[in-house]
């Protein structure tokens, strides 16, 4: 499956606050980070939890600076995020 992003790409996470199950943690919404690597393809849990059809899509390890997520801190946080949660950081794309 074609991957939209590769290591080093800057991405921004969705700001959406969906009423259904999601695995984009609240603390990492609307944040800009750097793709570390692609971890393979898996169906989007947001669709699966609602028993909707879900094909596999790329999941990425994405690293964020703590100050980007929390406004302070000198550490980094790396999350595993489905491609649907991400858009290129330099666009106004919304998901």
């Amino acid at each position: 499956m074609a991957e939209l992003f590769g290591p080093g790409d800057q991405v921004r996470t969705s700001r959406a606050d969906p009423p259904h199950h999601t695995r984009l943690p609240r603390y990492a919404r609307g944040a800009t980070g750097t793709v570390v690597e692609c971890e393979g393809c898996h169906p989007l849990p947001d669709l699966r939890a609602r028993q909707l059809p879900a094909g596999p899509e790329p999941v990425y390890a994405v690293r964020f600076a703590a100050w980007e997520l929390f406004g302070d801190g000198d550490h980094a946080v790396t999350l595993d995020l489905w491609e649907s949660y991400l858009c290129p950081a330099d666009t106004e794309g919304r998901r």
Partner: protein
Amino acid sequence: MSADHAGPAATLAARVRHLEALLEQRGLVDARELDRALEAFLARASPANGARLVARAWLDEGFRARLLADANAALPELGLSMRGGLQEQRLKVVQNTEQQHNVIVCTLCSCYPLALLGPSPTWYKSPAYRSRVVRDPRAVLREFGFVLDPAVQINVWDASAESRYMVLPRRPAGTENLDEQALAALVTRNGLIGVAPV
């Protein structure tokens, strides 16, 4: 969050029990067979597995490189695998260095490499650990009695999807004369999670 999570989890557990009862009733599965499979999995699931991987990685640079590059492919070298559950899970081993320390968490639930670390400790599943370690890992480590050099950068890995993580701690100084078994005995479960130095 816990209310959101308890609902579907409780429903799912009830559904699994019902399904299991139906399968047994119709003679499609044997309850003893299921128990045996679960027991066999849990009997093999132990932090001693993670410790063996760490000791081998400390002694064998080639193995360490293979473990860091593709842990699932390296595990069978020690007779281990991530295939204990319904499907093989991807394992990512993250290495502590002089500059960088790694800590593992699952902020959304309690994802954990059971096969290599055994059943997870209660604190790992607590809302306090899950919410605080991403926000202020240095303070959380201090509460575990682990004061990390302020110059060392911390990277917290939130296992929010399908990968599971294990920390490869730094080999303690003064252990040059120890063999693989003695080195493995130094490695603790907390070290494999990243809340202890080793």
